[in-house]
């Protein structure tokens, strides 16, 4: 990125116009040195105490070269001292919270003096559990790696670091366990990251699209989590982890439908309760997907399938409604989406009230005014609640999109259209893969992987990940 000799002129030229760029000339034993730092990323106190003071107090050399060697080999008692071989390294170190000392003619050394100003580790906001740990990822990647290390103290944990984004220079860490994770998975992940050539790598969607190859699908192909324990559990399964500086998330790949349907709460309960809840969750997945479309199909095309008392009740409730069933359901689905979106964008205290009150008041008012029938409202509400049951938000959002599509196709072609839509969906899911692991992998060869395994008998890792060590316990 930056070419040229490592000298004072070139370094100051890179950061010309940057108001937070600090440059300070020093004199040590008659030799002129320069100190550089970015205000806000570095700690002034640490810079003074652990870089500048040792330079002036401890270095005894008479030339820049001898001063450089003394500083590099410990006379400047800073835990990290990285030699900077080129201008690129100098620039990267400075923007990463290092103080760089230039020894003109000899080289430059970067000393780590990062500021302690960062968000503290707190409880997860979305993936809450009653019994599980309460430490969630934060924006600082080093804090996140320390969290992982606390959960997984194995020395075989590897954290391969790189920078992605020509201008953002976002620090990205690939986490895996040596001797466990399939090396091919790691290589694929590393290759994907190296192939990314963009200006900025800042948004979660950038991570998801670039790493997974930007497939035309609403379904998530990479799993994110804010929980360190869930992240580490994924690494122990043989998956590859990804941490991105600036995002309070950890990503796990490959992600298939089975992993996306797992909740951290599953591992806080006994296997019977957890299995029951998983079955419920899969039921909610199917119900949330097809219920509005099924209601339209039955009410418009296949009324003979509705039991007579229920049919009479539905007809009675629709007496004063001026809109067709399809229009009712589709408009309710869209209203539901609007309420959810408004709840997200408003401040938290207001947003929750708006979503709740909006749903109840608007829904009730719409029924009382005869704009929608109670049956349609109930069908859409149940489908909406079923969507909330899913542990992965991205999966729930994909579901919302397909649910609307199914409602539209059912309005046109009834159960025939709904069935055709389901076939298209299954075909679409079957064609998806993440890091060359199929999306519907848990359901291949008739394996019933809906239930949670008993930990005592769960001896083998997921064979589809081809882990180097397939056995979890003897």
């Amino acid at each position: 990125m930056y070419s040229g000799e490592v000298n004072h002129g070139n370094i100051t030229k890179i950061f010309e116009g940057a108001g937070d760029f600090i440059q300070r000339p020093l004199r040590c034993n008659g030799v002129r040195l320069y100190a550089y730092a970015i205000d806000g990323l570095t700690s002034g106190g640490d810079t003074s105490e652990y870089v500048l003071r040792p330079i002036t107090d401890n270095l005894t050399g008479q030339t820049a070269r001898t001063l450089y060697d003394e500083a590099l080999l410990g006379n400047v008692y800073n835990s990290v001292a990285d030699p900077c071989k080129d201008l690129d390294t100098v620039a990267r170190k400075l923007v990463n919270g290092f103080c760089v000392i230039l020894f003109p003619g000899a080289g430059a050394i970067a000393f780590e003096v990062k500021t302690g100003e960062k968000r503290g580790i707190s409880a997860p906001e979305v993936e809450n559990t009653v019994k599980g740990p309460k430490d969630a990822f934060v924006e600082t990647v080093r804090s996140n790696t320390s969290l992982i290390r606390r959960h997984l103290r194995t020395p075989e944990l590897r954290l391969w670091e790189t920078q992605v984004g020509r201008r953002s220079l976002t620090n990205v860490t690939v986490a895996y366990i040596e001797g466990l994770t399939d090396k091919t998975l790691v290589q694929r992940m590393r290759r994907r990251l190296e192939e990314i050539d963009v200006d900025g790598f800042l948004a979660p969607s950038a991570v998801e699209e670039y790493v997974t190859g930007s497939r035309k699908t609403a379904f998530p192909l990479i799993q994110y989590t804010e929980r360190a324990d869930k992240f580490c559990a994924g690494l122990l399964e043989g998956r590859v982890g990804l941490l991105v500086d600036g995002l309070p998330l950890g990503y796990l790949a490959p992600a298939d439908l089975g992993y996306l349907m797992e909740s951290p709460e599953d591992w806080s309960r006994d296997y019977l309760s957890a299995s029951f809840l998983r079955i419920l969750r899969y039921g909610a997945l199917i119900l949330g997907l097809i219920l509005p479309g099924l209601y339209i199909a039955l009410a418009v095309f296949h009324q003979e399938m509705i039991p007579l008392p229920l049919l009479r009740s539905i007809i009675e409730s629709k007496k004063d409604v001026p809109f067709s069933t399809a229009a009712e359901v589709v408009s309710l689905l869209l209203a539901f989406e609007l309420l959810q979106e408004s709840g997200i964008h408003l401040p938290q205290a207001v947003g929750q009230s708006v979503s709740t009150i909006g749903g109840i008041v608007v829904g009730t008012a719409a029924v009382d005014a005869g704009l929608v029938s109670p049956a349609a409202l109930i069908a859409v509400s149940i489908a909406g609640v079923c969507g909330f049951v899913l542990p992965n938000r991205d999966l729930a959002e994909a579901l919302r999109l397909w649910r609307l599509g199914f409602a539209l196709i059912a309005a046109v072609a009834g159960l025939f259209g709904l069935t055709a839509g389901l076939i298209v969906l299954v075909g679409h899911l079957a064609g998806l893969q993440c890091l060359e692991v199929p999306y519907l992998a848990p359901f291949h060869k008739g394996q019933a992987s809906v239930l949670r395994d008993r930990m005592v008998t769960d001896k083998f890792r997921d064979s589809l990940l081809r882990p180097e060590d397939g056995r979890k316990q003897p």
Partner: protein
Amino acid sequence: MKKWIRLGALLLLLLPQRGTDVGELLPVEVLLVEKEAGQYAITTDTGNSARGDSLKAAMDTLRNTAPGVIFLDTADYVLLTEETLNCMDALQGFVRPGTKVYTVEGEADPEKLGAFLRAHGPDTPLYRIIKEAKMVPKLRLEGDWHFEGR
């Protein structure tokens, strides 16, 4: 592959059947078929009635004059008289094969008989009566309604 999916989606839009909204339906549970002055007279428990020279003509009139879409797929009971027993074959084209058929003797009001038939009606579906030539249960009004032989 995408071309075939798009073609399939287009074909879906060209399907002839457009469906009937449930709000427009008049679901029938009990259907009474009588003969009056040589004409078939049909009365439903929804309060609709029609006449015609044949069963088909009467059904067509019923459909055309009802304030909604007469829905016979929900018809669970058909009441015939002695004069209209011979229209059971023609009846197959209008109601489900599982619709229960009875003969009725006396003034029958379909609107009021629904609950009684649900509670006491024998299981004599149309398809079994025709296929096995079974006897059609007779519903009689003697003070109260009851089935002959019960």
